[in-house]
């Protein structure tokens, strides 16, 4: 039969509740402290992230394979449905591209002649690694991808990540067998670019929306919707003239662009090492 709890039992219950409250408070403080540490000790936190990425890479890699297959099947069905239209479009494209090819060949010859005239140092040859996308990570404030290739595959920090159509982003962090990509659309992404045929200089800044913004356009910059945006090669991360996207909206001295690549629809990407020598760190002498 149950009796009313004695004073000892009540005291024990109170103590337990108190300990639980303290433990809870400790965890909240720990979470807040972690945010602070993450802000200050970025190297340590990045190292931890790389470790966690490496730990889950084999598992995520294995599970993401069937998803990639489903994606591919979906794409194939789409292709089948639109086969007729697609072939018409391709014929048109082909005719147009042949024209461009002729033009490109002419420019190539001209370019080589001009380079010879100027004694220009050629760009070092690029090498690349093809890596599977195993995680579409990122929270509300960031746009990241996790790749199933890391340092042992030759991926390095600041390597450029490309897909068939254009720039995806750059490598932010490298683990042994995983790497994290900072997408163009991420809040922390800043890429020096050239806009339109006039080659207006601007900085492409991600803000976690699907259409990143162009900043620092000069007041006399003439840009219009539909202008192509390519990397400018300044800043020493991206080489010049990699396709980035198209201007979709112009408002005053800022504009928004639609990147050629939707970072969330990728199965494989190319991680390219353009062997760019980073500029010397600017600092106090």
């Amino acid at each position, binding site marked *: 039969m149950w009796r009313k709890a004695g004073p000892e039992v009540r005291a024990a219950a109170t103590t337990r509740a108190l300990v639980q409250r303290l433990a*809870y408070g400790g965890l909240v403080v*720990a979470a*807040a402290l972690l945010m602070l540490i*993450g802000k200050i000790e970025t190297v340590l936190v990045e190292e*931890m992230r790389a470790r966690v990425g490496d730990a889950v890479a084999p598992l995520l890699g294995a599970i993401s394979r069937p998803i990639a297959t489903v994606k591919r099947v979906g794409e194939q069905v789409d292709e089948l449905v639109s086969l007729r239209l697609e072939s018409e479009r391709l014929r048109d494209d082909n005719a147009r591209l042949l024209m461009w090819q002729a033009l490109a060949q002419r420019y190539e010859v001209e370019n080589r002649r001009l380079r010879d005239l100027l004694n220009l140092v050629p760009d070092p040859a690029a090498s690349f690694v093809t890596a599977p996308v195993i995680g579409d990570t990122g929270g509300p404030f960031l746009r990241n991808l996790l790749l199933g290739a890391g340092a042992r595959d030759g991926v390095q920090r600041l390597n450029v990540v490309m897909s068939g159509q254009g720039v995806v982003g750059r490598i932010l962090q490298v683990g042994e067998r995983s790497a994290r990509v900072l997408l163009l659309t991420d809040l922390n992404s800043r890429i020096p670019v050239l806009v339109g045929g006039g080659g207006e200089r601007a900085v492409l800044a991600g803000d*976690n*929306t*699907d259409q990143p913004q162009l900043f620092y356009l000069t007041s006399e910059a003439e840009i219009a919707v539909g202008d192509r945006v390519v990397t400018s090669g300044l800043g020493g991360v991206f080489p010049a003239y990699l396709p980035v996207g198209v201007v979709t909206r112009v408002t005053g001295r800022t504009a928004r662009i639609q990147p050629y690549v939707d970072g969330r629809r990728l199965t494989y990407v190319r991680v390219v090492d353009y062997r760019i020598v980073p500029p010397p760190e600017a600092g106090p002498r």
Partner: protein
Amino acid sequence: MDTVFLRWAEVSARHATPVVLAFLIVLFGTLPWPLPAAVPKPAILILAAVYYWVLHRPELFRPLAVFFLGLVQDLLSGGALGLNAFVLLLVHEAVRTQRKTLANKPFFVLWGAFAVIAAGAAIVTWICGSLYYVQLLWPETVIVQYLFSVALYPAVAWCMMRVNLAILRPA
């Protein structure tokens, strides 16, 4: 001895189920699912899962588990370390304190309460994110995530209820 051990292992496995399930939501939620860009990552369902379990089986979903789930999510996502852990802990506390009020209430009330708590979580996430990145962030993604998690709550709650009935209260 063997039967005692087996019984213990079985009970432990049953009791660990909610946390393991939540962990799987976080892990599978980060896979590259072929979703349209406007749809948030499935990892956001963790909020609904935490709400459900703390409401119905708080003894199986302790703050420490919530902390680690948030931390794993933070480490995987590459976002502010500790942010999700912090928000989920606050959600845990909010649900824990409202348990008695919400006991034996119809589903729609529970859903409404989730909408309120998730709104609080979204606001805290946005404020902490803005402080962390030292700029006013676009609240758009947080709002979209909020709407999705509220809309998907019934589905998550239904799945968790099946698990609760099937695994945790065997016949």
